[in-house]
């Protein structure tokens, strides 16, 4: 096996490979045994395979619980908020508008009733959307302020960086032996290896 060359501590099989391996092996072994020795033996092979699979799954579950296995980032994300009452109202109003439209199209609601109902529900849906917008406004303002402050900070940062870049050559830690510019925190010259004089 190719992996045997690497040191034992590096030898790892991830869960997906193990699961796929067990299932493929079980099916293959089961079918082969089934053809050669009969159904009963094949069932035993399946029992063995499935048992191994079950143990693997439970083992993986325990590992996940202990924090040793990777966790799907989708579960890590902050739990989605339950749709608020307003969202629900909006969804319902939209659904109603759609229903009214369909029922009008197939002739269950005549034109006059349709006009009245449609207008009423449009108004209602609009009210809800407006209300949602209104509740969102403070957040929007906050977000904008955050963006603004972030941009300002970045502008300041770039400015500072540019200044730093401008100032950088002066701070270069040139080698006393060969004159090669070195990083400021370097202890030895990267070209000739001579010890650099510490500045701090």
């Amino acid at each position, binding site marked *: 096996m190719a992996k045997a060359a690497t040191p034992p501590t590096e030898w790892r099989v991830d869960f997906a490979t193990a699961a796929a391996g067990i299932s493929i092996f079980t099916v293959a072994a089961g079918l082969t045994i089934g053809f050669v020795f009969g159904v009963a033996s094949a069932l035993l092979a399946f029992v063995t395979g499935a048992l191994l699979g079950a143990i693997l799954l439970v083992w993986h579950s325990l590992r996940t*619980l202990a924090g040793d296995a990777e966790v799907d980032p989708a579960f890590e994300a902050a739990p989605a908020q339950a749709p608020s*009452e307003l969202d629900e109202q909006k969804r319902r109003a939209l659904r109603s508008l759609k*229903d009214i439209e369909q029922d009008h199209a197939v002739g269950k609601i005549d034109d006059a009733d349709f006009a009245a109902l449609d207008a009423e529900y449009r108004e209602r849906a609009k009210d809800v959307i407006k209300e949602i917008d209104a509740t969102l406004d403070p957040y929007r303002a906050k977000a904008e302020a955050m963006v603004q402050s972030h941009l300002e900070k970045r502008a300041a940062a770039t400015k500072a960086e540019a200044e730093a870049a401008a100032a950088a050559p002066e701070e270069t830690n040139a080698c006393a032996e060969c004159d090669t510019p070195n990083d400021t925190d370097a202890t030895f010259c990267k070209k000739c290896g001579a010890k650099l004089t510490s500045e701090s």
Partner: protein
Amino acid sequence: MWNTFPLFGGALLLCVMLAASYTLGVSVWAGATGKARALQAARFGAYGTVTFVAVAVIALAYAFVSHDFRLRYVAHYSDRSMPIGYLFTALWGGQDGSLLWWLFLLSLYIGACVKWLGRRHVELQPYIIATLMAIVIFFCVLMTYSANPFATSIGGARADGEGLNPLLQNFYMIIHPPSLYIGFVGCSVPFAFAVAALVTGRLDAEWIVACRKWTLFAWMFLAIGNTLGMLWAYEELGWGGYWAWDPVENAAFMPFLTASAFVHSVMIQERRGLLKVWNITLVCLTFFMTIFGTFLTRSGAIASVHSFAQSSIGTYFVWFLVFTFVFIFTLILYRWPELRNFVTDDKAHIRTLRIAAVATGWSMLGICAPGIYAVTKLPMSSLAQVILASVLCGAAVYTGIEIVYRRITHNVDYESKRPELESIISREFTFLLNNWALLGFLLFVLVATTFPMLSEAISGEKVTVGPPYYNAWVQPLGLVIFSLMGIGTLFGWKKTSPSALKRAFIAPGIAVSVFIALHLALGKMLGFPAIVWGDAIYGGVLGTILRSFNAFTPLLGFSLCVFNGAVIIQEFVMLFRARKKSGAGKEGAWLWPVGFAFSVIAVLGLVLMRKSFPSATAFGVIVIGASLAALVAPYFLYTLISLPHTSRRRYGGYIVHFGICFVFFGFTGKSWTVDRETTLAPHEHYEVSGYDLEYLGPRMELDVNKRMVFGDIAVSRGGTRQGVLSPAKFMYKKMPDSPTTEVSMMHSLRDDLYLVVGNINPQTKVASFQIHINPLVSWIWFGAIILIFGSIVSMWPEVAPAESRVWAYSRGAAGAIASFTLGILLASMPAPAWAQTQGTSSLHAGTVHIENDRERSLFSSLRCMCGTCARDLLSTCTCDAPGGANEMREMLRKKIAAGETNDQIILEYAQQYGSEALSIPPNRGAMRAIYAVPLVAIAAGGAGVIVLIRRWQSTSRSPRGSSKPKTSKGASKRDDYDDRLDEELRDLDG
């Protein structure tokens, strides 16, 4: 031989229990803390549990295949001679194994559900998994402690097993229980969603949308399972009918009723945010009914209700039901504020409300229990006691709820948040009526099924209710539901314009009037008279009313079929017209030539097969039907599939309704059933309903394990020979004393000729026959196929916008073909017709000789009281025991000969053996409760619907009234929001 195998099996069950408990704990922890790794661990734990169950099932299969007769279950249900296929079916052939099979199907559902959930509904997931695991644990406990399929026989391994009951060794028995189980088990998934919604408090439409497909799937399999059960009874049991209102049948039917109610009422919550409590209750009730059904079928009380819950397994079920009830009831009370749309930020206030709700709810129940007990001790008649107890209970419940309700709405602006209803003539209202009728029907069946327990509690007599009772009462109830189905379709959401409603009534109205006129005029001539008078089940006014109503059932049933069918066809016509108007009708117009080609092919094919049709009319009907269907099908299917998914659900539902029309059409045929008994000598003729039967003589055949005696009958109709039917008796070597009855049938669209042979005298060759003419039965199976197709259309996965039309269409076509194939397979599988004694029960075994209709009606209202059988009806029981059915029938015949009337005989019989000897509980005293309680409850439910409607309407009038002028003003001018609205509307259905 693997010495420790039984131990291994037992250990596997413990492993399942352990893994499930671990998963339950982890998932609850995940739910409580919201930790991502806990949730993922729970998911893997669920997969692990599922795999352990699979290991257990495969291990049991191994035990069967390797004939490990040390296991009691294996020894009991298999033997060495069984073919390997039946060895696998033995997995669910008996109680212990069928519980494991139940668990296995449940775990398949769990696997699929966890997989499907994936990254969706992350908040609901932990509790969904936890609920499902709790159910798994219950079944594990049940198996480990009471019905372990891996338990060993006390006497050690035997040389050979007892073998599977021949009754179970046939095609329908192989597929019917699993399909019913799939339906039963499937109801656990919506229940788990409901519990998760309750625990997390996310009670908006989210969980309903999430579990919709699961609900529909379970519903469909309940329908398939029930239909297959009917087919099995019809083809195998040899008593000439398809439904006997057996407790087991009722148990399978009741969840179907609640699931149907749920499928409809969720639509109101989705649109209006109403009926939240009701929907939760319906889901839980459906789950309850499935467990209750399993309990009835698997507590060893299949054949009769008398040994109700006497085996130890019943106790576990009762405790599980009690535990579930307590849990759900408390949870619902706890979430009362959310369920009643009560929103506030004041946490402390909410907490008080929760405590108040829980406390009130429970104390309310607490008050009821001793109250009822006290009432039963009062010195008054039983009927008065029942009424008083119901009134007391109702009052307590109402007061309790009212207190909670007042408390919640106390000084809060609550009314304005209530959703409202514009108009009574709307689909919402008809859906309420639908729920009311379905639940009323459920209550009726439930009371009648559990009446032995109820009557014992009330009057100390175990009175079992027989088919004649159901048949009389079910006709009015069923027809009410059926008529609501058609009428409701005519209504639109929100508000139906009266003018439009009138217009919608015109076409079906004309169709039905023409049909009624034709039926009254021609019905008798064609052999389907419009009015059929039967026997009254009671004396007195009530009996007369029921009898008069039921006399009109054929006319009503037929005309409602026509009306509902016309309504649905009109619905589709309106759909196509609307699509044409909007320009969408042109899409797929190229399919018309395709349809025409199909149609031509179909006609040509049928003409080539002309010879195989029994009559010219049948041929004509089939040719016309097939060519029309082939012409329309491609375009019709294309349109269905390309509809946006909400509409597709709706029209799929209409197709289901269309299927139900056919099913009812078939049920109506019951009114014209002809049952005859006759004894024929060879070459003697017998005429019945236009059939000419000639008895050709007996014929005997032998094979390895049985002797078969056939009574061949040549059937001709209108002078042409239709074929030879060979009803038979099979004498198995293993059971020489109980010959099995082999039904032989000739199916046609008009009626089924159903022949059963009784005794054949070996010397004189004279044979006795039972002849049943069952009109229109084939239509039931046909309707069921359409119903399955419709529910598949409703469930069809949404087509992602990225997918092309061609792809969508081909998927649709594949689905349609698959469903048709499935349907045709189910309907036409040639199954050998078996019928045979099942174990010690004498249910439907052998043949009973009945001389005339008077005897039939008398015998079917009395039970055999010999004490060895399960108190079957005298019309079906074949006990030979002293005092058994045969003796009884002779005694009754003497009484008839002595000139006594049926009523007198029944009265004497009841005096001798008590009320429990009657199949129809007498219409007096406490026995009245059997129909009085459901009827009172139905009336109360009706009143409840009215109150609810008034309340909804009042909220719609009062606070919103002020906004009316604003809307009319606002409608005239468009603003930015209109554009946004249009955009969102476009996106709504994808």
